[in-house]
Every structure is written in structure tokens, then in C-alpha cells.
């Protein structure tokens, strides 16, 4: 049984909860190596996502992610806006009109999201950005899909890999984004965007755990 629009909507709701819950934590991470607004940015962005979903409930997971993309793009107000906006938009395009998503579709959507982050931000792996959470997540999801695991397992693998990837940004020196202004002083702090990516992918896995599957066609 694959994942459908219910999963996507649940994911976005859990994302909004996570951003509200970790708002201060993300702000503090950003205070250390940025401008102390990432938690505020993400919280506002996901509140706008919820509002958008309420105003016009989506019919597919792709439509849900597209609505989220536009809300994030508009309302985040920081680098994370165009980055997550582009990521979710590319993921939505990857999902297309599908009503049920298997592990392969999930892995492809995550890869498309990651490619969106790269297209928008031109970062490379190891630059201490959200890309350092997205990339291992994509690889883990792809591996799970290749193994024949289900979508839930793929998302769980992705979430875990993103968490590990976010933690692995701690010793890195930032080469993109505001934190790059700090040079060597950026080492010893977790990248806020990598941390938020890990939270969002964990929400995706949680939403899939016991998800009711697609709405059928």
C-alpha cells in the first residue's frame, strides 16, 4: 500500500508542528552562525502552508507539495524560502498526478527536491548547508527503494540519514549562505537548514507510519 494525499497533508501538518516546537532551537542554531531567524522563518512559512491547505484542500500529494512550495517561497523570508520552495516544487513535479506513491516515487521526489536545492543555492556537499542533510537522505531512500522496501521504510531511512547528515555539519566550515561570512568560526555549530531538513524528513516518516495509504483513484 503506497502513500497518497493524506500522507502528504499529514506530513505538512507534522512539519508545521515540528517547526513550531523547534522554533527556538532553530533560532539559536542560526544565532550562532547566521542571523537568528531560521526558526521564525520556518514557523511562519509552515503556518502559511497550513492556511493554504485549509483554503483549498489538495487532491494529490503532488498538489499538496506544490501548495506548500508556494507558501514557503512567499512567507519564509530567508534563504530557506526559495530553497525549500524550489525543493518542494520540484518534488511536486516529480510526483505528478500520482495517487499512490511507492518507495521509488518517494525516492525520486526526494532526489528532485535535493536537485532543486542545488539548482537554487549552488552549494556542494560539505558546504555546511541543508544540502548536507538532503543528499544522504536521497541516497538512503534510493537504496531502500532499490532493496524493494516500502515507502515507509524509504522515508524512515531518509529521515535517519538526514539526521546523521545534519549532525555531521557540526565540524564543517561553511562555504555557502550567511554562515560562510564566519569562515573558520562557523565550525563547531550545526547548520540550521540541515537541522530543519532533518526535522521535515522525520515528519515525513512519522506521517507515513500507519498512514492510510492513497485515496484510491
Amino acid at each position, binding site marked *: 500500500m503506497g502513500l497518497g494525499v493524506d500522507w502528504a497533508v499529514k506530513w505538512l501538518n507534522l512539519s508545521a508542528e515540528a517547526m513550531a516546537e523547534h522554533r527556538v532551537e532553530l533560532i539559536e542554531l542560526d544565532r550562532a552562525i547566521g542571523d537568528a*531567524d531560521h526558526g521564525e522563518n520556518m514557523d511562519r512559512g509552515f503556518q502559511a502552508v497550513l492556511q493554504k491547505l485549509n483554503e483549498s484542500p489538495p487532491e494529490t500529494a503532488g498538489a499538496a507539495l506544490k501548495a506548500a512550495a508556494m507558501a514557503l517561497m*512567499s512567507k519564509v523570508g530567508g534563504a530557506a*524560502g526559495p530553497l525549500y*520552495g524550489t525543493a518542494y516544487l520540484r518534488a511536486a513535479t516529480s510526483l505528478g498526478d500520482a495517487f499512490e506513491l511507492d518507495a521509488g516515487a518517494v525516492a525520486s521526489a526526494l532526489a528532485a527536491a535535493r536537485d532543486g536545492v542545488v539548482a537554487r543555492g549552488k552549494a556542494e556537499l560539505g558546504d555546511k548547508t541543508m544540502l548536507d542533510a538532503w543528499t544522504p537522505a536521497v541516497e538512503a531512500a534510493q537504496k531502500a527503494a532499490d532493496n524493494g522496501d516500502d515507502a515507509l521504510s524509504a522515508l524512515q531511512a531518509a529521515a535517519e540519514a538526514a539526521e546523521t547528515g545534519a549532525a555531521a555539519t557540526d565540524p564543517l566550515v561553511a562555504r555557502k549562505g550567511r554562515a560562510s561570512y564566519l569562515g573558520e568560526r562557523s565550525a563547531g555549530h550545526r547548520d540550521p537548514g540541515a537541522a530543519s531538513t532533518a526535522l521535515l524528513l522525520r515528519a515525513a516518516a512519522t506521517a507515513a507510519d500507519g498512514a492510510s495509504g492513497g485515496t484510491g483513484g
Partner: protein
Amino acid sequence: MTVGIVVVSHSSKIAEGAVELATQMASDVGLVAAGGTDDGRIGTSFEKVLAAVEQSLAEAAGDGVVVLTDLGSAVMTAESVKEFASEPDAVHLADAPLVEGLVAAAVAAQGGAGVEEVRKAAEAAGGAV
């Protein structure tokens, strides 16, 4: 007609002040400020920037628009807006210092320069003259 110019800054004050400053030397050029977030915080707003770019495209009536930005997230917002704009190919991002580049670009546009020339004028602006 002249090339239009959009000023994307994290701060509405910076964007407005830069437009005031450049207007002194380029009073016939359409300069549009797009600074700060929708809700008045420091940051950039996709919607504000998109609205500014569309206004500028309309006013430039085919002559094109040059977009100046301050920090990296403003660049990303501007690039996203370019993709969503009604005429993406008419939107030219300048890799230039915001205030200094704007004055140079505005003077070039006032002199009737084309969109590529205006962008180059912005990008050539270095230290204070």
C-alpha cells in the same frame, strides 16, 4: 522608454533609500524598491519582489528589467521570481553591490542604455567614485 530597475534588499529602508538616492541622478528611470518581508521584518519577500518585477516589466514596456540584490538569500529570491515572472528572459540579475551598482545602473538607464549595458554598468561599479 528606459530599462526598469528593481532593488531587492533585506531591508525596506535600504531599498527605499537607495531608490531615493539614485532617483536624484536618474529621475526618468523607473526604479522600484522591494525590501523586507511581507510583514515588515528583515528578509526578502517573493511576493513583493514578484510584484516589483511585474510593475517594472510593464513600465519598461519591452526594454527589460535589471534586478539588484544585497545578500545571497535576496539573490535566490530574485532568481525564483525570474522563473515565475511573465517574461523571464526580460529579467536580468546584476551581480553588483546594491547601492553603488544601483546608482551606476540608474545613470546608465537614464542615458538610454540597453538592458545588458545597464546590467554591466551595475557590475562595473566598485568603490565610491
